[in-house]
């Protein structure tokens, strides 16, 4: 089983040199800590920055420089600022190569639910609906099951939808899955996790073909 950092580390292996990447709040943010050697990736923050750097040191904190999670950050050489319309414009135009998001539920057809739980206070979708509807490559980072032990990889989302048929890949503490026309295709098992456990914890259609390799982190 992977911890959150290992999920992030596994996702980081999907990065390619020159990628522009948008990382959501939560586990996705951790991906930035595991960018492989020799690969240059530019992080986009949808509030208006390309080239997001690490958190500032105490003396460099600037209230005018935050990320989409409202955290204080820094720029890097080659950064550029822009307004929110251009930010979502570049996302909509497919210029962002990869988007990593958290989710409450993913369906085996790529539907995603990650913004609203009926009965709970609704805070809003922020940029999630724009991102999922527009990004050309979306990887979801999430826990395989919820606190009640129920699968979050479903035949059909039970929560209000954020976007339809948009997720390309899912990485959980149990494994890596491509979203295919036949459902979730198991690509890799997390170290120590059996195919049987994954089958047991996946409610949506699951494709298991041949030997499933254990993930190398």
């Amino acid at each position: 089983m992977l911890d959150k950092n290992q999920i992030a580390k596994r996702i980081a292996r999907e990065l390619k040199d020159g990628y522009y990447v948008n990382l959501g709040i939560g586990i996705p943010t951790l991906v930035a800590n595991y960018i492989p050697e020799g690969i240059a990736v530019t992080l986009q923050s949808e509030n208006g920055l390309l080239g997001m750097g690490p958190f500032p040191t105490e003396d460099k904190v600037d209230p005018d420089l935050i990320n989409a999670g409202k955290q204080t950050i820094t720029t890097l050489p080659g950064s550029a600022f822009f307004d929110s319309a251009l930010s979502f414009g570049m996302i909509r135009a497919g210029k962002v190569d990869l988007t990593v998001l958290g989710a409450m539920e993913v369906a085996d057809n790529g539907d995603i639910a990650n913004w609203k739980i009926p009965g709970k206070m609704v805070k809003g979708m922020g940029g999630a609906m724009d991102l999922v509807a527009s990004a050309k490559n979306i990887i979801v980072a999430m826990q395989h099951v919820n606190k009640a032990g129920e699968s979050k990889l479903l035949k059909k989302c039970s929560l209000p939808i954020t976007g339809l048929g948009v997720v390309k890949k899912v990485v959980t503490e149990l494994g890596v899955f491509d979203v295919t026309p036949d459902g979730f295709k198991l690509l890799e098992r997390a170290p120590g996790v059996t195919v049987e456990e994954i089958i047991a914890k996946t409610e949506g259609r699951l494709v298991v073909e041949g030997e499933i390799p254990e993930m190398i982190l």
Partner: protein
Amino acid sequence: MNKVVNNAETAIQDIHDGATIMLGGFGLCGIPENCIAALVKKGTKNLTCISNNAGVDDFGIGLMLQQHQVKKMISSYVGENAEFERQLLSGELEVELIPQGTLATRCMAAGYGMPAIFTPAGVGTEVADGKETRVFNGKTYLLEYAFDADFAIVKAWKGDTHGNLIYKSTARNFNPLMAMGGKITIAEVEELVPAGELDPNAIHTPGIYVHRIFQGSNYEKRIEQKTITK
């Protein structure tokens, strides 16, 4: 031509009860602190506020919520605000949640004289309820209308007496879009300079979009999540 006013009170004096106003900022970053304070002081009621967020309990639009000045919020994300939640659950406050990119683009559309735009954001979700959809090149889009706001209130870093504005870092966010989108646009700036001092190549909002401008004071610039590298 005289766009310069003395202070926030003068700038907002004709914002009337029931007005629809755009307010720039993302979270508490780049918000028009002086104008918000003046609106709280003036006590204008029944406002419809178009703003990405609704501030926090004791800052930003949260201050207007405390005074029950807001009838409706049009936002993309409204967390971090207990009074907001209370008013919403009690039915006192109306909220329309809009995807962030749609919110930004509907402001921009107003500034570009485009009556409506197409976006894929929200297709297949409850955001699409009752909205027109259209397929282009095999992909489905929603038709979303330009906002129609009586006033836009924005915060810039530098401005000149012609109303030209330059924003700083990510405090730009929705500000230039709303500056374009309002019928009357009010800009508060950290530094107001005479025309000619800003580089004409570096202007973010051309002065034609700005009707009133003043140099603000006492910016608190509160940070929501101070994250540091040790």
